[in-house]
């Protein structure tokens, strides 16, 4: 991996290509008061993130806790997508492949040789990175739409392979055996709380990675590739190599979340961990939140996941019917965002803060 050198002034951020430069606040001029208030906001946020679930648990509010876990899961997945699609500009509609590889690898290692899912996570991430390099190396020669459609094709091929692969359960998938509740087994039956904290930690890792990428030389290279690949190449950026770094990071983080999903839901099958609809959802969360910005995926997950979980519960209570209201709203929002504010919700919130 390349050397990671911090810019001298860590508070100044360059405007990424494709972003509205006026949307970035003049952070340097705000000075110390701003950084103090930012610290306070961070402390409050941390307190809420760590404390709120305890309150929910005490009140026996299981479903809100489930929603929080899903928000963390999708924030992780969307951030992983964001590193590849947002920063490096490579639109992947096949990230479910890495999710499925992570879920299947750790699960198979657990059921076949009794390996702890914690080690399984690492193996799964490693396998996903290898898969991502195998996909990326040929496909990164394709630009724009061709790459996006190629990732759909690869995703469909992988899903078909798993559906027809009897040794790993075929279309019916794998039911994870119930093990005694223990950290080493990555299974918790009496409470969802441990899953929440693990999901939160994973989201923190993903956001930490995005933060490091954004501040490092890697991030500048990614944005150069996204902005103008030919210009980047003429300036000596090894385009394919840096795209491969981006997809490898994205794959590793996505696979990590795949293991969490397998251990939390305890059933995996090609229709739940490898479908195109998952790849699409990951991408929608990131795009709606705002691609190429660090808080976009979180904002997207905070808006979309409660919406989809909420409509699911509401429709289940009101007797079902059509479903998919959530996706209808997503689709409409994505169109509006693409037409009026390609920067996503993040850019809209920035604009409001700029006025206030």
């Amino acid at each position, binding site marked *: 991996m390349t050397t990671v050198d911090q810019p001298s002034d860590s508070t100044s951020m360059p405007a990424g290509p*494709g972003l509205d430069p006026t949307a970035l606040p003049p952070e340097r001029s705000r000075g110390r008061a701003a950084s103090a208030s930012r610290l306070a906001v961070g402390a409050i946020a941390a307190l809420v993130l760590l404390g709120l679930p305890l309150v929910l648990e005490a009140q026996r509010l299981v479903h809100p806790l489930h929603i929080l876990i899903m928000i963390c899961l999708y924030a992780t997945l969307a951030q992983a997508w964001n590193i590849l699609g947002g920063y490096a*500009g490579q*639109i992947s509609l096949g990230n479910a492949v890495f999710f499925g590889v992570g879920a299947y690898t750790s699960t198979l290692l657990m059921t076949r040789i009794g390996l702890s899912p914690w080690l399984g996570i690492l193996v799964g991430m490693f396998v996903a990175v290898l898969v991502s390099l195998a996909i990326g190396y*040929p*496909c990164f*020669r*394709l630009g*724009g*739409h*061709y790459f*996006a*459609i*190629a990732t*759909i*094709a*690869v995703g*469909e*091929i992988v899903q*078909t*392979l798993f*559906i*027809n692969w009897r040794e790993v359960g075929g279309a019916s998938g794998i039911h994870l055996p119930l093990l005694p509740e223990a950290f080493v087994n990555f299974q918790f039956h009496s409470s969802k709380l441990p899953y929440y904290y693990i999901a939160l930690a994973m989201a923190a890792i993903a956001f930490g990675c995005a933060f490091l990428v954004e501040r490092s030389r890697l991030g500048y290279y990614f944005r150069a590739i996204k902005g103008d690949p030919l210009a980047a190449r003429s300036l000596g950026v090894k385009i394919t190599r840096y795209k491969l770094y981006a997809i490898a990071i994205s794959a590793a983080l996505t696979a990590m979340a795949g293991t969490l999903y397998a251990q939390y839901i305890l059933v995996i099958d090609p229709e739940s961990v490898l479908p*195109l609809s998952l790849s*699409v959802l990951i991408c*929608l969360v990131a*795009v709606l939140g705002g*691609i190429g910005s660090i808080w976009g995926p979180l904002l997207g997950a905070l808006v979309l996941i409660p919406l989809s979980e909420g409509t699911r519960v509401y429709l289940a209570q009101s007797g079902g*019917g*059509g*479903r*998919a*209201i*959530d*996706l*209808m709203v*997503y*689709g*409409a*929002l*994505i*169109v509006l*965002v*693409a*037409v009026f504010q*390609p920067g996503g919700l993040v850019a809209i919130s920035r604009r409001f803060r700029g006025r206030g």
Partner: protein
Amino acid sequence: MPTEVLLQAVASGLLMGCVYALIAVGLSLIFGLMEIVNFAHGEFLMLAMFTTFWLALLFGIDPLLSVPICAALLFVLGVLVYKGIISRILSAPMLAQIFATFGLGVFLRSAAQFFWSADYRVVPNHVVEGRLNLGGLFLGWPQVVASIAALLAFGTLYLFVTRTEVGLAIQATSEDREAAALMGISSDRMFMLGWGIGSLCVGIAGALLANFLPIFPDVGFLFALLAYIAVALGGFGSIVGALVAGVIIGLVEAIGGLFWPSFKYVAVFVLYLMVVLVRPQGLFGRY
């Protein structure tokens, strides 16, 4: 493998290929004009199929009669989508262009699921039924009619684009937008027309497919994917390429399905990957 079985597969592959070609050419026309891929193309097809279904169920209109109705409705839809969405993002970054049509597709698909549920539906009592016996070779009449109609529509489109003044104006705009504008061709009107005609093709294909395929909100996805592949295979923007590629895909699907039934689309996807990796401009591509 007996020869009849292989011939049977080839024949049905050819028939489906003609319909794939008609779907693909709509996509190709739009891309050739303005280098925007309509990721909602499959949903346009789904809407045409549902329109055919409801016309048949509510008014007893046969799918064949709803071909012109679907064509007209989809033309209007295409124009509206261009006016409402696409014309605003002509100079936007490519990501915004991808997500605008992609989001539209997600919206239309889930709206269909919301209003009409995810159930599979079949058009009741259509006129064209039964099978055609060609010396031991059995072909479904609906498929035969669909492929003939698709070829007719394709031929009409080809003549329109190559022989009429408006068609030449469309070609001129896709060759060089600025030069065409200097000749007095409004690129905005050509784009609008392109979206209208591209969607019209899908409307015809949808009504024809509704004759023999079940209809559900996700039905367009596979067809759109095959159409993207056909467009990439034939070369983005090439009309003849779309026809050849559509037929190739129909054949690969049918013959692949003969040998590995559960992997027939894998064969098509692998074909796509091989083509774009080896010859990125496609068989007849200009780019």
